[in-house]
């Protein structure tokens, strides 16, 4: 792994000092840091970790939904779902590109993923046993993701922010199509309504966990906020998300599975039950219902595609040789 931005100042403390001053200035002015700027090693590492995890989440996140492409119950839904899963592949690629500008190759990131050395959003380790899960993922999981991602469009690292702008634009339909799936189900037969409510019951809490641990237990948050990577705290975003869900759930006619969920007028926030963080830790630690399955699929695709990637590289090499000889 090379760190191109450091090459020019390696062994030159004066240049590094000037670089640091420049970096601090950019952050203070809420400007953007670009790939070849000097940046603190910790900033680079934090970004590589965050952006690659984000990319992995897009790629692994394709799986629970692709599970239903072949069984989608109408051709319209089939097309929408296929477009959505395909978008996620695209989003993974935008993010890998952004991470790559920090000096890590996509091959290395992919190796980290399939060898189980990298994390991705633990939400994708839950299975999708019913069609209503396509609705719940769109409404709740993509909804939570959008809450997280919209502020990231202003992340201090230029390539990350630009990738997020692109992603947010494209994702505007993802949440809406999920909402629509649930709405159709809730307006359908009794069996369809039950399917929808069951999916909401299963995805509601995991989607709230997507915002990460409570603020007082989130050690990296303060530094990320100081660097203008993160703009709002985990709990703030979670509150904002729940505030969006409540009226939407009413439109749908689904019940959010928290008996203690209520608006607290005095504190201007929602009261809610304690989140079961033991479950979060378990899933995060790789003991979720589908962890092994998700990694296996990715590893198999990567391994079984090796001969194709090699073939294309070899063909390119031969063509280049031929045109050089000509």
């Amino acid at each position, binding site marked *: 792994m090379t760190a191109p931005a450091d090459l020019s100042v390696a062994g030159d403390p004066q240049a590094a000092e000037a670089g640091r001053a420049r970096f601090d200035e950019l952050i203070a002015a809420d400007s953007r840091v670009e790939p070849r700027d000097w940046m603190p090693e910790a900033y680079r590492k934090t970004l590589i970790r965050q952006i690659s995890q984000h990319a992995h989440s897009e790629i692994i996140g394709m799986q629970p939904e692709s599970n239903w492409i072949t069984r989608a119950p109408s051709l319209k839904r089939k097309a929408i779902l296929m477009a959505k899963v395909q978008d996620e592949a695209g989003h993974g690629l935008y993010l890998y590109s952004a991470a790559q500008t920090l000096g890590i190759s996509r*091959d290395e990131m992919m190796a980290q993923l399939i060898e189980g050395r990298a994390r991705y959003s633990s939400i994708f380790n839950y299975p999708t046993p019913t069609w209503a899960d396509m609705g719940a993922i769109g409404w709740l999981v993509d909804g939570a993701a959008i809450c997280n991602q919209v502020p990231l469009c202003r992340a201090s690292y230029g390539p990350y922010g630009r990738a997020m702008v692109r992603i947010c634009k494209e994702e505007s339909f993802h949440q809406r199509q999920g909402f629509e799936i649930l709405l159709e189900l809730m307006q359908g037969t009794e069996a369809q309504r039950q399917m929808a409510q069951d999916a909401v019951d299963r995805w509601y809490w995991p989607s709230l966990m997507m915002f990460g641990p409570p603020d007082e237990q989130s050690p990296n948050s303060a530094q990320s906020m100081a660097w203008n990577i993160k703009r709002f705290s985990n709990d703030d975003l979670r509150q904002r998300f729940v505030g969006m869900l409540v009226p939407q759930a009413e439109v749908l006619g689904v019940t959010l599975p928290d008996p203690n969920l209520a608006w607290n007028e005095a504190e201007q926030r929602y009261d809610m039950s304690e989140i079961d963080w033991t479950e979060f830790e378990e899933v995060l630690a790789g003991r979720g219902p589908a962890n092994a399955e998700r990694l296996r699929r990715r590893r198999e695709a990567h391994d079984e595609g090796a001969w194709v990637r090699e073939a294309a590289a070899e063909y390119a090499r031969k063509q280049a040789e031929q045109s050089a000889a000509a």
Partner: protein
Amino acid sequence: MSTPGETGTEPWPLWEVFVRANRGLSHVHVGSLHAPDADMAVRNARDLYTRRNEGVSIWVVPAVAITTSDPDAKGAFFESPAGKNYRHAVYYTKSEGVKHL
């Protein structure tokens, strides 16, 4: 000095992608991708960056082929224009209010 991102270690090299959104506009950098060669790069770029009618023309450039200015020379490199605001129309205030100028 090439663009950041190309490590030279990957079997499929990195390509930078530029898309012309409409006739009359410049090609604008939109991101990068991996492809074994130029033919595939331009096709992958079509699939990846123009899924929603974002473009009418695409350039792909091997990331290694791009030369960038030295970021540490930023001050000196871009200093010169700073003192030459007479290159901008707004410098000329006396003609304000005169039509067609």
